């Protein structure tokens, strides 16, 4: 089982493009007990997948003792543990080495550094470079997450070349999606979009538990919406959240058909004017559908219908045509709950 844990929304930076508005004044965090409990529950669920925890925030390195403890706990469960940081802490080689050594000894398998023109207003690129370099020196797999703005100085190849030279084993270059810090806006030229509905299935579903316990099937900017909600860890077991992650119809449709199939149904039902002419990628289309009231209504309707179809098949397979399996079974007149 793979799970993403958003440990906190506290961050030393207040990036304009941060869809969850993390910052120094934010204080929501999962408690240590909640984190360990979620990890323990995940480890207890039988799965053919390797257990893996993806730790994110906020900036996790602001509470290094907690991060270290969480990494150690996850590694102790046999999980692969990775985390994301903006690398603010890499102010010198010595400091970066000391911090990453602690985390490596705790069991950190890999980490990713996020940067962009927005991050770099708070954290210099030299620190990102240092974190990647020390990571490589210590034998920790590290990746670069780069959020691209169309007017950035370096193109995709140049960023890849720079990051790889610094020590990244992988570079992920993302275009900006239109879910920004509360109250912030960017003009349309900030988004790279192409005409038409982007085809393809959902590439990035993961069971995500946020800092307030709310759980979603994706952590892409704009994905924290009711249609992708799985419940809350304070009221639902992780097993229940896992079942909704795998058996939820919206999630299944996105996995098997992709958001374009939902968009086509939106058009078929006469709500095509709610769609844009241009999208960045399938995630852009998906989050647009999930955040628009009318499109969301269509998605909800389609999902409910599909759920009945799936459950009907299960019921039919288990409860065969009469006579009933057991003489003790009874059927009474009932009403909908």
């Amino acid at each position, binding site marked *: 089982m793979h799970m993403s844990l958003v440990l906190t929304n506290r961050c030393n930076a207040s990036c304009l493009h941060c869809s969850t508005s993390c910052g120094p004044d934010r204080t929501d965090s999962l408690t240590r007990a909640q984190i360990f409990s979620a990890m323990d529950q995940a480890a207890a669920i039988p799965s053919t997948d390797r257990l893996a925890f993806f730790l994110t925030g906020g900036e996790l390195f602001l509470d290094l003792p907690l991060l270290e403890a969480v990494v150690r706990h996850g590694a102790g469960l046999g999980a692969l543990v990775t985390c994301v940081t903006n690398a603010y802490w890499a102010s010198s080689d010595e400091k970066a080495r000391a911090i990453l050594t602690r985390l490596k000894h705790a069991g950190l398998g890999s980490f990713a550094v996020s940067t962009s023109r927005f991050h770099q207003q708070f954290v210099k690129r030299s620190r990102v470079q240092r974190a990647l370099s020390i990571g490589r020196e210590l034998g920790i797999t590290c990746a670069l997450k780069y959020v691209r703005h169309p007017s950035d100085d370096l193109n995709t190849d140049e960023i890849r070349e720079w990051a790889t030279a610094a020590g990244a084993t992988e570079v992920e270059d993302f275009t900006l999606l239109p879910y920004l810090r509360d109250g912030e806006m960017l003009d349309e030229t900030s988004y790279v979009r192409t005409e038409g509905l982007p085809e393809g*299935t*959902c590439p*990035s579903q993961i069971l995500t538990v946020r800092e307030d316990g709310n759980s979603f099937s994706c952590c892409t900017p704009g994905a924290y919406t009711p249609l992708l909600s799985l419940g809350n860890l304070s009221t639902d077991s992780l097993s229940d959240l896992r079942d909704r992650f795998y*058996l939820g119809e919206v999630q299944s449709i996105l996995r098997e058909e992709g958001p374009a199939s939902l968009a086509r149904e939106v058009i078929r039902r006469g709500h095509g004017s709610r769609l844009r002419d241009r999208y960045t990628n399938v995630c852009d289309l998906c989050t647009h559908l999930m955040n628009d009231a009318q499109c969301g209504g269509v998605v909800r309707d389609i999902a409910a219908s599909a759920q009945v179809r799936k459950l009907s098949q299960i019921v*039919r397979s288990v409860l065969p045509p009469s006579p009933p399996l057991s003489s003790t079974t009874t059927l009474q*007149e009932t009403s909908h709950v």
Partner: protein
Amino acid sequence: MSDHNKANPSAASDPSNAFDRIAAGPTSARARKLIELLDGNVEFADAFLKAPAATAAKLGLVLSDEETELFLLEKRRLVGEQAASVRAASTRDRRDAIPIYSVLGADQSTTETKG
């Protein structure tokens, strides 16, 4: 303004109704009743998936232990099927992937690269 509506501006809402199709087949009275209860009732469907026997019992529909176990087995089978679907999606097209997951790619011994 989008051009999307031009594709089929007069299309009517017509979601498929599984219940109609199921009810037309050789289905037991209990199955028909259960499907009817599930139809459009998301809360009930969620509760039923979680605890089929207890949820059905609250509505006066008794499931035997054998049937309950079959429901749970089928649920586990579907979960496994969907887990495989997630793995397939994760390796199909990584261009849109969230990078935190792809960090796994370099040291994962199995084929999956993210959740």
